[in-house]
């Protein structure tokens, strides 16, 4: 504006004025723009970088200072005179600078009223030396104006109030259309202020550079058409393109934004225009080498007073790593979610301390018959134990939460309708929504447990078949006595006689006793063959041993096998199931019997035929052992005996499921089996379980 005014007034050649004005304009613009960029940058990074904040504060102080400086520095004093030095124009800038109003000075002579006599004297010294006594000031003006090229000179101005200021003064001659000199144009700028301003700008720029270089952000200035300018070389590190290609408008920012992100980028911009004109966008750009980089750009749209977009200022941050991490996290969460939601296994998330159910997947809903809604908040213990054994209690009471996962072999839970389900549980510690939690993955093994039960039952039937010979023999004993008693009575009656009261009483007593005995045998047998449940209870190991001996002890005796027992009467207790343990004892006993029988066949009768059954316990374990004096198990077979269908017995004499089934049962009760050689021949089977009191 000033420039235009000057041009109107002085159409000749205001080259110096133009230069100065342009320079000032540039300076002002840069400073404003630097400040605006910095303010936005500050918004983005101030929180993260205390150091940056400090720098920024200094920078802003410097800016504020300079702004004040510039406001006044912009006031260029423009004074025009006629050829005699009479002031013809005195602009606002001159009014402000010198304290005179235009009215006061128009028509007066310059330079006298603004200049100090001393300076004028000195300025004129050269002329005086050439012989002149008192050079006119105007001559100095002529002199200066005629120099080529015209140059700025430093002068001291005297204000109306008598104070002085240093100015840069340039003097041009004003010429008429006919090229005749008509006057002078003096343009003065406040030199002290400008010097200070330059100083401040330098300082400010240094701070600004420091700031720009120290923050990870890339400060930019952009335009609505996609042109963009950068101020440091970080953009090259980010994009692979040097800043110059943007600054020279060889490349447009939209050129490197990934095409599919452009719509959202535009949308944000438009939204920002409608609101506070600031926005933060995340989008991808394509580097020179083709790599994709995610950036976050915080921007402020700068508009002029009419609301037209002037430019956009802001800063980029490379967020590729963050995006990658976010994506990885998202993917991992997705994976977890999809596993959780669509996994075939029931999964529950439990609060570690209260065991309250925090989350349940659809499979858990299906398995338990509760809806997710019903399950969440419910105590897990209402479904069943966390584990099939007492370890569970220790686990929760202990402060040390295991970092590894814990598995249970077979745990019985209840559905909503009360029906039992069997599950294999795996529990792992996790953090769920900032809580200590347990993730529990279950495998529904109800089917396989049922199959196990069927197999076990089949095995029991085989056992019963095995028993049948012995049982038939045993049952025939009471039947025989009853029969004979009865045949006696018939014989007497047939002879037309009457049995004596004593005889009748003897027969009646025998019959009654023998029927009881037969019933007892049948009872034991039925007990042995009953379908087992899976409940584990506290069992003394002595119980299954007595039960089995009651059935086959007599049989073993008849084979001349001496069965010795050394049972600890106190508490060889375990958490198990009597019926299953009977099967274990029975199988081992019949194997022991067979081993002895085989040895008889191979080596004759000349060895002690003995089976020794012991029970024992320690602080932590309870166990039993069964040793025989039979053939023994060759070393190479010791590992194989627990394999299904392994048998050394002759064809038809055993299905070979015995020991593999035993192995399964013992493992189920958390027990171990050891096979040892017995000194002098034979085998010792040793079973050890965790003890319960």
């Amino acid at each position: 504006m000033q420039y235009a005014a000057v041009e109107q007034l002085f159409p000749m050649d205001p080259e110096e004025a133009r230069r100065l004005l342009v320079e000032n304009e540039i300076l002002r613009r840069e400073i404003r723009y630097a400040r605006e960029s910095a303010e936005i940058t500050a918004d983005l990074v101030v929180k993260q970088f205390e150091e940056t904040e400090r720098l920024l504060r200094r920078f802003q102080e410097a800016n504020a200072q300079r702004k004040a400086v510039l406001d006044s520095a912009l006031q260029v004093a423009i004074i025009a005179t006629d050829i005699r030095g009479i002031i013809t124009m005195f602009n606002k800038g001159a009014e402000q600078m010198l304290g005179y109003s235009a009215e006061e000075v128009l028509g007066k002579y310059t330079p006298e009223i603004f200049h100090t006599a001393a300076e004028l004297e000195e300025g004129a010294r050269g002329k005086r030396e050439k012989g002149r006594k008192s050079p006119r000031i105007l001559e100095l003006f002529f002199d200066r104006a005629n120099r080529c090229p015209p140059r700025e000179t430093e002068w001291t101005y005297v204000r109306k109030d008598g104070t002085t200021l240093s100015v840069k003064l340039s003097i041009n001659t004003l010429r008429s259309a006919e090229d005749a000199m008509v006057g002078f144009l003096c343009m003065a700028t406040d030199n002290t202020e400008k010097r200070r301003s330059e100083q401040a700008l330098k300082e400010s720029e240094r701070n600004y550079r420091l700031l720009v270089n120290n923050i990870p952000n890339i400060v930019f200035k952009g335009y609505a058409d996609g042109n963009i300018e950068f101020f440091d070389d970080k953009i090259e590190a980010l994009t692979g393109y040097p800043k110059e290609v943007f600054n020279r408008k060889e490349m447009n920012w939209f050129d490197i934004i990934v095409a599919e992100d452009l719509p959202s980028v535009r949308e944000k911009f438009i939204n920002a225009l409608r609101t506070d004109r600031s926005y933060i966008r995340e989008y991808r750009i394509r580097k020179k080498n083709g790599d994709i980089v995610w950036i976050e750009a915080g921007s402020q749209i700068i508009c002029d007073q009419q609301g037209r977009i002037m430019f956009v200022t802001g800063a980029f941050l490379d967020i590729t790593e963050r995006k990658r991490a976010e994506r990885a996290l998202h993917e991992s969460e997705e994976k977890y979610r999809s596993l959780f939601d669509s996994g075939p296994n029931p999964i529950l998330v439990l609060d570690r301390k209260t065991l309250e159910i925090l989350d349940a997947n659809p499979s858990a809903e299906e398995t338990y018959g509760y809806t997710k809604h019903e399950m969440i908040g419910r105590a897990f213990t209402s479904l069943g134990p966390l584990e099939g054994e007492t370890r569970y209690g220790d686990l929760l009471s202990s402060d040390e939460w295991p970092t590894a996962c814990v598995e249970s072999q077979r745990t019985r839970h209840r559905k909503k309708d009360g029906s039992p389900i069997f599950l294999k549980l795996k529990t792992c510690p996790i953090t769920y929504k900032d809580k200590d939690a347990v993730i529990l993955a279950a495998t529904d093994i109800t089917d396989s447990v049922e199959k196990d039960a069927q197999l076990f039952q089949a095995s029991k039937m085989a056992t019963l078949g095995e028993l049948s010979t012995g049982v038939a023999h045993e049952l025939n004993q009471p039947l025989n006595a009853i029969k004979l008693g009865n045949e006696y009575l018939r014989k007497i009656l047939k002879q037309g006689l009457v049995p004596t009261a004593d005889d009748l009483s003897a027969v009646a007593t025998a019959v009654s006793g023998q029927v009881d005995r037969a019933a007892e045998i049948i009872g034991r047998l039925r007990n042995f063959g009953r379908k087992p449940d899976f409940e584990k209870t506290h069992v003394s190991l002595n119980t299954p041993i007595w039960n089995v001996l009651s059935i086959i002890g007599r049989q073993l005796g008849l084979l001349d096998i001496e069965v010795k027992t050394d049972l600890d009467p106190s508490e060889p207790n375990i958490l198990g199931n009597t019926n299953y343990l009977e099967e274990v004892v029975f199988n081992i006993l019949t194997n022991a019997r067979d081993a002895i029988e085989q040895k008889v066949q191979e080596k004759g009768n000349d060895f002690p035929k003995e089976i020794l059954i012991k029970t024992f316990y320690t602080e932590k374990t309870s166990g039993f052992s069964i040793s025989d004096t039979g053939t023994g198990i060759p070393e190479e077979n010791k590992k194989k005996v627990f394999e299904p269908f392994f048998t050394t017995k002759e064809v038809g004499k055993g299905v070979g499921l015995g020991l593999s089934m035993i192995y399964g049962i013992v493992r189920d009760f958390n027990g171990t089996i050891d096979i040892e050689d017995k000194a002098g021949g034979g085998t010792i089977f040793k079973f050890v379980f965790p003890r319960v009191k």
Partner: protein
Amino acid sequence: MKKILIIDDEKSTLSMCRLFFGAYGYEVLTAENAGDGLEIFKKERPRIVMTDIKMPGPDGFSVLREIKALAPETEVIVVTGHGDEELAKKAYELEASAFLSKPLNTDEIEAALKRAGEKI
């Protein structure tokens, strides 16, 4: 009076046998195991012996062998709790007069006794 020796580890069987064979006019000698049975046999020399096979200690076959060795003319009836062909075959090989399965019945006992040359 004709004598019969019954060897069986079942006490109730022995007591019923005493009544039963008593009704046939026998003096019934009883023993609960092979050892006792042979002792009584050597002392009383009954013409007819009935022994169970399965007993703790020496079984009925060893009784059969011993008696046949001591007095081959003795009639030995072998009784088993659960008969099978193998046992029967073995009994006849050892020259048992009869092989019976428990529970015993009158007809079989009478037949066996008759075959042993007894008059009943």
